[in-house]
């Protein structure tokens, strides 16, 4: 059995992200919202976010809070017009190989099991 790191990561049938889209203005956000931050509408529908995207900007974190493994690459990825925050994985986190504009795709990896054997699944973006 497995559980996603956040509720907007859906694991089945294929891993993908799900956004809340405002039915009035089409603004998209992740997570539970009480009203649209753009137009104040209160009706949302769930929409799948494309799993492929373009890396818009990034940083490589070398020094972080206790317990956060470094270095890692944090980035913003444009997935079909929706900006998504996530780490770049499956590539060495150095500015020599990670570049703005590169094509990436969603990927998932295990964060280990809890005491009852449930596996936590995280997402990142890897080069296409």
């Amino acid at each position, binding site marked *: 059995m497995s559980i996603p*790191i956040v509720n907007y990561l859906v694991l089945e049938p294929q891993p993908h992200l799900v956004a809340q889209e405002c039915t009035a203005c089409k603004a998209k956000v992740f997570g539970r919202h009480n009203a649209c931050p*753009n137009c104040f509408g209160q009706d949302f529908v769930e929409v799948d976010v494309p799993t492929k995207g373009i890396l818009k900007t990034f940083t490589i974190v*070398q020094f972080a809070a206790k317990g*956060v493994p470094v270095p890692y690459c944090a980035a*913003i990825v444009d997935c079909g017009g929706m900006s998504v925050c996530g780490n770049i994985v499956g590539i060495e986190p150095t500015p020599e190989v990670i570049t703005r504009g590169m094509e990436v795709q969603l990927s998932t990896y295990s964060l280990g099991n809890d005491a009852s054997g449930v596996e936590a699944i995280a997402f990142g973006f890897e080069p296409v």
Partner: protein
Amino acid sequence: MSENVWILGIYMTPFGKHADKDVLDLSSWAALEALKDAGVTMKDMQIMGYGNLMGGTNGQSLQKQIGQTGIPVFNVSNACATGATALRAVIMAIKAGEADMGLAVGVEKIAGAGLLTGNTVGDGPENWTPKGRNGAIMPLDGRIGTNGMAGLFAQIGLQYNDSDPRADFELFARIAEKSHSHSTLNPNAAYQNKMSLEQIMNDPMIAYPHTRSMCSANCDGAAAAVVVSETKLRTLSQEQQRRAVKISASILTSDPWSEACQELADVNGLTRNAANQAYEQAGIGPDDLDLVELHDCFAAAELVHYDNLKLCEPGNAIDFFNSGATWRDGRMPVNVSGGLQSKGHPIAATGVANVWEIATHLRGEAGPRQIEGAKVGMAHVIGLGSSCGVHILEKSGL
């Protein structure tokens, strides 16, 4: 038309490490010196705005140290814009006609606090339990992006102007080089040593492209301002009127919706809004500014704010910086105090301290770092979350 407001007295403690003083010693120091500078006492204050983000003190505890007169206190919290918010609260009360004099104080004691970041990742759980609005089963810092400020502003800077390839490590390091050069003239700066481009680039990397010396410096410090209505000011002495500094614009904004803003903080929209409103309120334009103190919490932030504050043509911040315009001998000196990377950034004090810096130049009292003939200046702060304060100040014509 509401009342004009002025700064009657203002003070900034030296920034750095004050091991022998606690938070209330620091805020008392700034408040008492600001009152002395204004030539008034606590008895004249009718309102207080107070900000101390990390230390847990409030304006009432300050009053127990310097004078309990029963006046209303607004204890404010607005991230790095906390000091500007305290000042804004006092200004609004005077503009509203509810007070003719008030005191704004910002203080922080964070020397040696290390990295100010989100959270820590706990050990293996008994059961993964979804929590919060995203159903997160663990802290997300480092798992889904970064909560670290150095990394957030790195992403903001590298994205400048649709990711102009010239917005690179060396450019940001050259902006920090300016900061560390300017601070050599500021006896109140936490770090007054000059740093070469090579030293800055070879410093330990915190979050690419920000090395340690490209990040704001945690330190202790406080700043306080006495604000007065113009009507009241005109009843005071010639000397008080001569040294008073006019607050031509006082603006506070929060971040308006933009497509990506809930994934990466958008520091641009609210700063642009604040700058536009400030220029309109003051009835002046960017070309009228003699100096600017802007919120360079990280080197990359300074670049985007050249554009956001309209100091350069839209999209032209890189050429603008490369022209030398923002060095102290340039046509638009920016952060002649040294800015947050070298002067230091005691969080809640910063939004009053940058007003002190501008006011001190307008009074012609800035000593070796004085911008000669300065008549108009702007102070800008931004706190992530987000909140932006912009104040435009003018030299007294009284």
